[in-house]
């Protein structure tokens, strides 16, 4: 955390290497979080770049007031996604075609396994649509953004206790909706 604070201070003073370090440290998480919510590679890429451009423009106004830099960055990402859906209100479906490319190697490197996995991911995306917006946000931040409970709480502006309750409820609901899918995925390690 101290290192992050130092980097933010340096970036605010215009140090490009400090901003680059912050970019490198956050890029994958922000991309995953956005991808989880928009499900289209091109949109995810555009939005990710917009988030960092926005962060660059606004870093001068960032203050440590009980909100970490990560939480601040995820709020920007959240706002960009909200704007994106406002602009593209027709996009309320999640097409399978042209879906996110999975660049993992290993068990998903052959096309059949990748297609199967994409289908499972799709099921989960659809199931997530049945959660409340707040539950969906917590799941996105915790699993795609890999934020801690504390960071998630800062990002969504709730208490840590509320986040724990929401993630419990969300997982319980998801389990009910997609029981057969998770059974298929059982046994696969993360």
């Amino acid at each position, binding site marked *: 955390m101290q290192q992050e604070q130092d980097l933010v201070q340096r970036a605010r003073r*215009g140090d*490009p290497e400090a*901003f*680059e370090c912050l*970019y*490198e440290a956050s*890029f*994958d998480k922000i*991309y*995953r*979080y956005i*991808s*989880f919510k928009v499900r289209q*590679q091109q949109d*995810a*890429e555009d939005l*990710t*770049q917009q988030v*960092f*451009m926005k962060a*660059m*423009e606004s870093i001068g106004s960032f203050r440590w007031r009980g909100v970490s830099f990560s939480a601040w960055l995820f709020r920007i990402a959240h706002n960009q996604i909200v704007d994106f859906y406002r602009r593209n209100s027709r996009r309320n479906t999640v097409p399978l075609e042209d879906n*996110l*490319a*999975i*660049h*993992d190697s290993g068990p998903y490197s052959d096309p059949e396994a990748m297609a199967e*996995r994409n289908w*499972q*991911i799709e099921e*989960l*995306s659809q199931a997530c649509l049945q959660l409340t917006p707040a539950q969906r946000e917590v*799941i*996105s931040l*915790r*699993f*795609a*953004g*890999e934020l*801690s*409970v504390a960071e998630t709480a800062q990002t969504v502006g709730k208490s840590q*206790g509320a986040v*724990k*309750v929401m*993630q*419990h409820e969300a*997982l*319980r609901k*998801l*389990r009910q909706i*997609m029981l057969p*899918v*998770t*059974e298929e*995925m*059982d046994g*696969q*390690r*993360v």
Partner: protein
Amino acid sequence: MVNEFEEVLSVCIDRIVMGDSVEDCLLRYPDHARELEPLLRTAIAARQAGAVKARPEFKAVSGYHVRAAFRERTAKHVSSKRGAFQWLPRWAVATAVVLVVLVVGATGTVAAASDALPGNVLYPVKLAGERVQMAVTFSDEGKAKLYIEFADRRAAELVNLAATDAPERIEETAARLTSNLAALEALAAAGRGPADETKAAELEQELARHAARSLDALDKAQTETQETAKEAVDQARDKMLQGYNSALEAMQKRGR
């Protein structure tokens, strides 16, 4: 009000995100195992759904754009605070910088820095010299050539660093190499570069030659790589290959 189970579930989710298996968590909390298991299996499914990776070429190009925008913004900010030198036109400031570099170069500092490796006290001078060179190069063709030349220098530095016990410096140098190649790719993707088709084809061939030579040199250097730096060198090689391929692809597309 958070109950005990919600606390336990939260801890287990953190552990799963860190790479623990469901079984590890169940063993840790046997009293809650029955209730935990289905939720943790669902958590694994959610984690897998979120585990997508960005295309490496997008990450590199995006990083280049963000860095360039940051530098531009900082430069604007600084220029608006030039104070006593505000009356000077930009070209005069650029000329003054070049003159300073030349004068300093005459004393041997810049010349000595040209062989400096990352970690050496003169290395920042080498990078500063390159930035000045880039700043005073105005044609797209000139910039493209410089990006190739700078990428070549980074590749040579990687070859030298491959035998050292400095994985962080190897990673930093690989990132700089990627950045140079991403800049070249962005230039080509924007349809910029040599105006003449023959020159564009020559530049493409030159890049391909540099790529082959650098990869070959790094492969040879890998035989002397120390165990602690092996992973960093392997990753640097992957980045180098990816960077050269993406830049070449962009140049080929531009030529079509």
